[in-house]
Structure formats: structure tokens, C-alpha cells
């Protein structure tokens, strides 16, 4: 198969776009597309400051790399979760991020280590609070969200960018549709406006790339990323949904893309507007972040409990 632009040997064929490209033209296309999505969805401008949440995986590192190449003011945030899982997951993922930064002088990385900042690793916090039936994902998600908001607010960032790709978004959409969670549907999109004073808007510049495209970008640019999953991701429903969608895609090219774009169009037309909950957000007295409940937010309540129980068990 030949590159559509120059007839050299193609390195990737994107069946949903009927587009095959060589290495040089693929990298060029990938940057131009990202720029297009950033403008189309009004994610941020070159004058604004962006915080990129990096996990050491292909998507987030590729995103940081692309934003810097496009000339945006992008800093990185790495959150040390303290997950070992027998494979040294957190240690390994941090190592990838560290090397990435080392190879690109001038980049700024913020690191927040959960255990040293809040008093326990994520798996310990999940265990002592018995949240999430043996899986730390609920405590993990809550904690990551809080830290991202905090660092973005404290650092005066305008936007918080994550590396979610189309497969991630389509899997979430599939789950939300399967259960008709219209409240979630109303809030899913490439941009989530700041819901509260001092919060950054959340943006997903890669939301229209297939996962294999972000992986190809990382491979072709030689980004060394963590190939292993978080050990707790095994058996996650999102992975199952991705498999289902990919089976569909294999038979009907573009099925994932159409599913997601059709949703965005419907959303734009206001189909989910009535589901847009007008919840009154309060401010947590401890951390100052928005919360739907009165009094302390879920993050502060959970972590107060974690510290109490960890202290009690160590005496």
C-alpha cells in the first residue's frame, strides 16, 4: 500500500478515512489533525496554559509531545499512585515519564506522590476504606480527579488535557448508552467547561484518533511508553466494550468513528439538553473544590477516614 501524498511505502492504513500514509506524512497529518480538533472544539489557545495529565502510557505522552511541537504552553502532571501489582507498575510508569522529560529539555513536570502527600498509597486507601470491592479504581479515580483539579487551580492553568482517544470515548459512550445514563451522556464531550470558580476546563485533544493511531504516533516518534496495563485494569468493563466495538469495526470500517461523531452531532443539536442536571454545587470547606453534597467533599471525607484508619492500625 502506498502513501496517498507521496507514493512511498505506507506505514499505516486508516480504513475509516480510506487514507494510507508514509511515516513522514503520517506524523505531519497527526499534528495537523490535533491542531484542527483543538480549534474546532475551542479547547485552548496558544496564549493559554495547559496542564497535561501524563501516566507514562502512549496516549498521554504522545499528547504532551504533540502539544509542545504545535507550540502550546503545555506542562505535565504525573500522579504517583503507589501501585505495584507485582510488576512495579507505578515505579515503571514514572520512569517512562522521567525519561521523556529528560530527553526534552525545557519541559516542566509536576509530580504529586499520593502516599507522601495524603498518607497512603491508592491500594492501601482502598483496602482500609473498603471502597470498590477489592478494586482500588473508585478511590483512584476520585483521588486523581481531585489532584488534577488542585494542581490546575494552584498553578493557574486554563485547561487540563488528558490523552483520551476515540476508543476510550466510544467505550464510555457505549456503556452510558447501554444503561441509558442520559445525565452522563449530557456531560460527555471533547470539552467540559469549568463547572466552578477557579477550575480548569477539561479537554481531550485526541478524542477523534483511534487508539491504533496514537500508538502508531508513539512508535514512530520513538516515545518509550509503559506497555503494561495498570494491574487493576484487567477485566475492566471498558476493555470489554472496546473489544466489542473493535469486532464491529473489523467488519464495518468506520463504525467506531460514526458512533462517536453521531453522538457529538446529536449532543450539539441539544438532544441531551433536558438531561443536563442543574445541580447546585457547593464548595468543600476543607479543600475548596466543588461538591454536590453539603459539607466535606467525597475526596476529603475518604482521605480523612484513610488517615484515621492507617494511624489506628499502626499503633
Amino acid at each position, binding site marked *: *500500500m502506498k502513501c496517498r501524498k507521496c507514493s512511498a511505502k505506507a506505514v499505516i492504513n486508516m480504513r475509516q478515512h480510506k487514507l494510507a500514509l508514509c511515516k513522514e506524512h503520517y506524523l505531519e497529518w497527526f499534528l495537523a489533525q490535533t491542531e484542527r480538533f483543538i480549534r474546532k472544539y475551542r479547547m485552548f489557545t496558544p496564549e493559554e496554559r495547559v496542564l497535561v495529565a501524563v501516566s507514562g502510557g*502512549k496516549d498521554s505522552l504522545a499528547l504532551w509531545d504533540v502539544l509542545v511541537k504545535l507550540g502550546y504552553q503545555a506542562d505535565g502532571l504525573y500522579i504517583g499512585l503507589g501501585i505495584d501489582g507485582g510488576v512495579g507498575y507505578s515505579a515503571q510508569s514514572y520512569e517512562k515519564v522521567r525519561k521523556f522529560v529528560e530527553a526534552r529539555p525545557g519541559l516542566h513536570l509536576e509530580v504529586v506522590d499520593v502516599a507522601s502527600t495524603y498518607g497512603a498509597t491508592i491500594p492501601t486507601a482502598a483496602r482500609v476504606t473498603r471502597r470498590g470491592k477489592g478494586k482500588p479504581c473508585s478511590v483512584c479515580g476520585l483521588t486523581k480527579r481531585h489532584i488534577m483539579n488542585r494542581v490546575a487551580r494552584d498553578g493557574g492553568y486554563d485547561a487540563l488535557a488528558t490523552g483520551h482517544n476515540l476508543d476510550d470515548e466510544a*467505550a464510555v459512550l457505549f456503556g452510558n448508552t447501554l444503561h441509558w445514563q442520559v445525565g452522563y451522556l449530557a456531560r460527555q464531550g471533547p470539552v467540559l467547561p469549568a463547572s466552578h470558580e477557579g477550575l480548569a476546563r477539561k479537554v481531550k485533544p485526541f478524542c477523534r484518533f483511534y487508539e491504533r493511531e496514537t500508538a502508531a504516533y508513539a512508535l*514512530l516518534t520513538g516515545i518509550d511508553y509503559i506497555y503494561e496495563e495498570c494491574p487493576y*485494569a484487567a477485566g475492566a468493563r*471498558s*476493555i470489554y466494550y472496546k473489544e466489542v466495538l473493535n469486532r464491529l469495526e*473489523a467488519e464495518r470500517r468506520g463504525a467506531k468513528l460514526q458512533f462517536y461523531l453521531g453522538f457529538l452531532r446529536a449532543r450539539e443539536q441539544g438532544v441531551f439538553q433536558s438531561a443536563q442536571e442543574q445541580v447546585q454545587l457547593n464548595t468543600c470547606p476543607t479543600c475548596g473544590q466543588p461538591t454536590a453534597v453539603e459539607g466535606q467533599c467525597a475526596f476529603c471525607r475518604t482521605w480523612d477516614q484513610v488517615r484515621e484508619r492507617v494511624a489506628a492500625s499502626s499503633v
Partner: protein
Amino acid sequence: MSAKLIFRDQEFEVEAGKTIRDAIKECGLSPETVLPVRDGELVTDDVLLEEGDVITLVAVISGG
């Protein structure tokens, strides 16, 4: 006449002469979830397998 596909810690022997895409499907894998690499280079999956080819399939799905 055979070529080899490597996916994570699995190895598959396949016949040469067919496309990488067909070989991937034959091994029960989804062509949408892997990127074929030959001699360190990314290749498209319409490439015909040649005798002795070793194709590493890079998994692209991540989750959580």
C-alpha cells in the same frame, strides 16, 4: 512455507503468501487492536507474508 506472528507472549505459525490482516484474523486476534511491525518497521496489514517473516504485533488497547 511459513511465517511467524508474535503477540505478547504468544507465537503463531502461519502460512506465507497471505496478507498480514488475514493471518491476524486467523489467529483469532482483531486487526483493529494491533499494529504489525516487521524488522523494526511499522507495516500496513495488506502486506503479503513472506517465507521466514517475523511480525511482531504491538497491542494498542489500554484500559482502566
